[in-house]
């Protein structure tokens, strides 16, 4: 498993640049016309699927967001346009903005923890002996492979108020007030458990990728750094870090979108409770729309959620655009 990084750090990419590619290498004009069409033909299935299976639901969602669509309308297949009422209601209410802010903070904290700890684990993997590395890798892979529905269920059980193993351990460690602590009773403790769960599930991806990346760093670079008299820290900052930067960017991007969308973990663990205090945007959209059966309102929130997500990742998308431009020059 890997991430799509945007700038090939070394090796083959350079070869590729000089070797050139695409349909440009052929002189035959007819072939080149076919060649010019080839990329579009190759992309056609993917684009068709995207338009049909993503574009259409998106459009439908947009249309629904301008409708008053509740139980009765859904059951009787009635379309009741209500203009921008859903948006006005959502955007003028406090809830939406509170949830948005919470979502952004939640994503920031989780992504930061995941990236930081994941990188440390990745670097640790690089430092371990073969056998130990294999052992830790197995542990990481097990956590990574746990299906999210199963993992969330297991965490509910670990953190159960009664007979949950975490409370038992805390009690034995002397925190007797925790013996019957209800993790779902409080906003912060709910977020705490969800964060532990998400970080636990996400670290392996970051760590294993990062480890794999470090193994591709040419040894000569370190030798050269050592010749320059660089210490461990110096060679880390001058060799390792710059080399890993594209990975860190790409992985962070993926983690942001995955964690921002962490619907299953939050919803399954505590349904956005207590008192709706742990609803993040996707959960909020779901509870307002499907849970409370205000489907039009839910559609409006969903659409706003998508816009916010694009906003959050805009910075990275711009980097990608820029890099691709450079890369195209090389193709």
């Amino acid at each position, binding site marked *: 498993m890997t991430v799509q990084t945007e700038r090939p750090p070394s090796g083959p990419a350079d070869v590729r640049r000089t070797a050139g590619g695409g349909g440009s290498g052929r002189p035959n004009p007819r072939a080149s016309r076919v060649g010019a069409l080839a990329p579009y033909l190759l992309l056609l299935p993917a684009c068709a699927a995207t338009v049909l299976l993503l574009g259409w639901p998106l459009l439908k969602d947009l249309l629904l967001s301008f409708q*008053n669509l509740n139980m*009765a309308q859904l*059951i009787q297949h009635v379309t009741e346009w209500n203009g921008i009422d859903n948006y006005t209601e959502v955007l003028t209410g406090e809830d939406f903005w509170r949830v948005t802010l919470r979502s952004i903070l939640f994503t920031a904290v989780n992504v930061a923890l995941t990236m930081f700890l994941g990188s440390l684990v990745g670097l640790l993997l690089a430092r371990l002996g073969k056998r130990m590395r294999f052992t830790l890798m197995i542990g990481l892979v097990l956590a990574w492979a746990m299906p999210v529905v199963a993992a969330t269920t297991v965490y509910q059980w670990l953190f159960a108020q009664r007979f949950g193993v975490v409370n038992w351990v805390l009690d034995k460690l002397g925190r007797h007030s925790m013996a019957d602590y209800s993790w779902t*009773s409080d906003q912060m403790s709910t977020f705490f458990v969800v964060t532990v769960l998400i970080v636990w599930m996400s670290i392996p991806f970051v760590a294993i990728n990062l480890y794999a990346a470090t193994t591709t760093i040419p040894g000569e670079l370190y030798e050269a750094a050592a010749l320059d008299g660089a210490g461990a820290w110096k060679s880390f900052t001058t060799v390792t870090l710059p080399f890993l930067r594209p990975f860190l960017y790409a992985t962070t991007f993926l983690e942001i979108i995955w964690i921002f969308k962490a619907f299953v973990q939050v919803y399954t663990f505590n349904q956005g409770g207590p008192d709706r205090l742990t609803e993040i945007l996707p959960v909020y959209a779901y509870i307002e729309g499907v849970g409370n*059966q205000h489907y039009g309102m839910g559609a409006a929130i969903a659409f706003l959620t998508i816009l916010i997500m694009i906003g959050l990742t805009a910075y990275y998308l711009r980097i990608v655009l820029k890099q691709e431009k450079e890369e195209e020059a090389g193709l």
Partner: protein
Amino acid sequence: MKRKLISAIGVAAMMVSIAACGGDDGDEGGKAGADGYAGQTLTVWVMDGSSPDQWQKDVAAAFEKKTKAKVKFEVQQWNGIQQKLTTALSEENPPDVFEIGNTQTPAYAKTGGLADLADLKTEIGADWTESLNNSSVFEGKQYAAPWYFANRVVLYNKKIWAEAGIKDTPKTRDEFYADLKTIGDKTDAEPIYLPGQNWYHFVGLTIGEGAELVKKDGDSYVSNLADPKVAAAMETYKKFQALSKAPKDKDEATPQQGEVFGKGNVGAFIGMGWEAGIAIEANPKIEKEIGYFTIPGATADKPEGVFLGGSNLAVAAGSKKQELAKEFLRIALSDEHEGQLAKLNGVIPNKESLQSNLEGNVVAEAAAPAAAGGGTTPLIAEWAAVENAPNPIKTYMTAVLNGKSPAEAAAQVEEEFNKRLSQQQ
């Protein structure tokens, strides 16, 4: 249609009478041909745990015998049922007949998703207990048929009560509290397992106090949680909850209170009779220790108010088998099968005349005295939105249990509560 009004008569007689006039209905689909309804299958949604296999089997057999059609029971989970039902009713092939919670019925009646059952009511429903039929009637029309009802009782561990030296079951609320105190003092057991969000019990307490959860404000309904009577009910709840180690922010299902009780270290809990089964499954040895009594009220002559949970059977307006669906209701709700259900499940049947089926059933005998003073959540279409998670009443309960005054807690959830009551339909 020349159906006679049939009241409490034997099922055999009823069958004859219906057979005599079968097949003359003019509905499009689901029409009985020369061969009855042979080859058709009626889909019936029943909720998890509501009807025993034996009952389903017997009803299916009787149904097949009479109509030549088959019936397919599909068991549904309560969790998320409203969303599932709403979408299902919008589909081409909705379940033909479905069980629907009594408190959810008005909201669905209003959506137009339920078929009008006026003729069925005239035909077989003349002696349905009126208080049980209330939830099926919306704006004067009959949208469902009452099926079965139940209310909560106290399930207690006889061994622990004996250990604490208590001989008789309590007859008043104060006695009940004193007994639980004694258990706490004299034994190692947790006197009562009462999680903070057993909200149906709380609704029962408000009914006991004569309180209303909502009040009318002009054209719409608003929260009435600030009513001192509601506060009084909540104080009672809090007093008993203080004796329990159960979580203040969970309902009785997480963890299953029956399972906790089954461990044998809990004096009592307030629940439905069938929850004893969960305890026994967790620990078979507990079976002979379980006793039941009516939840005691403020005075000995009147048991505590209880929430009368229950279910109605409704026919989807979009079903193409309207007549067949009604045939099913005639059989399922016949004295034979309605009585059988009461007997097997210990639930309160839809007619007084069938209550004799409860004799000898200790659970039902403990439940029945309170049923007369039982009630439901407000029977208004707006109510369904209130029960969606996160239920503001549960939030209110947890807030009070965590130290807020009832007035503060009522103020805290009022906005959310009112918002749900005023949601566009």
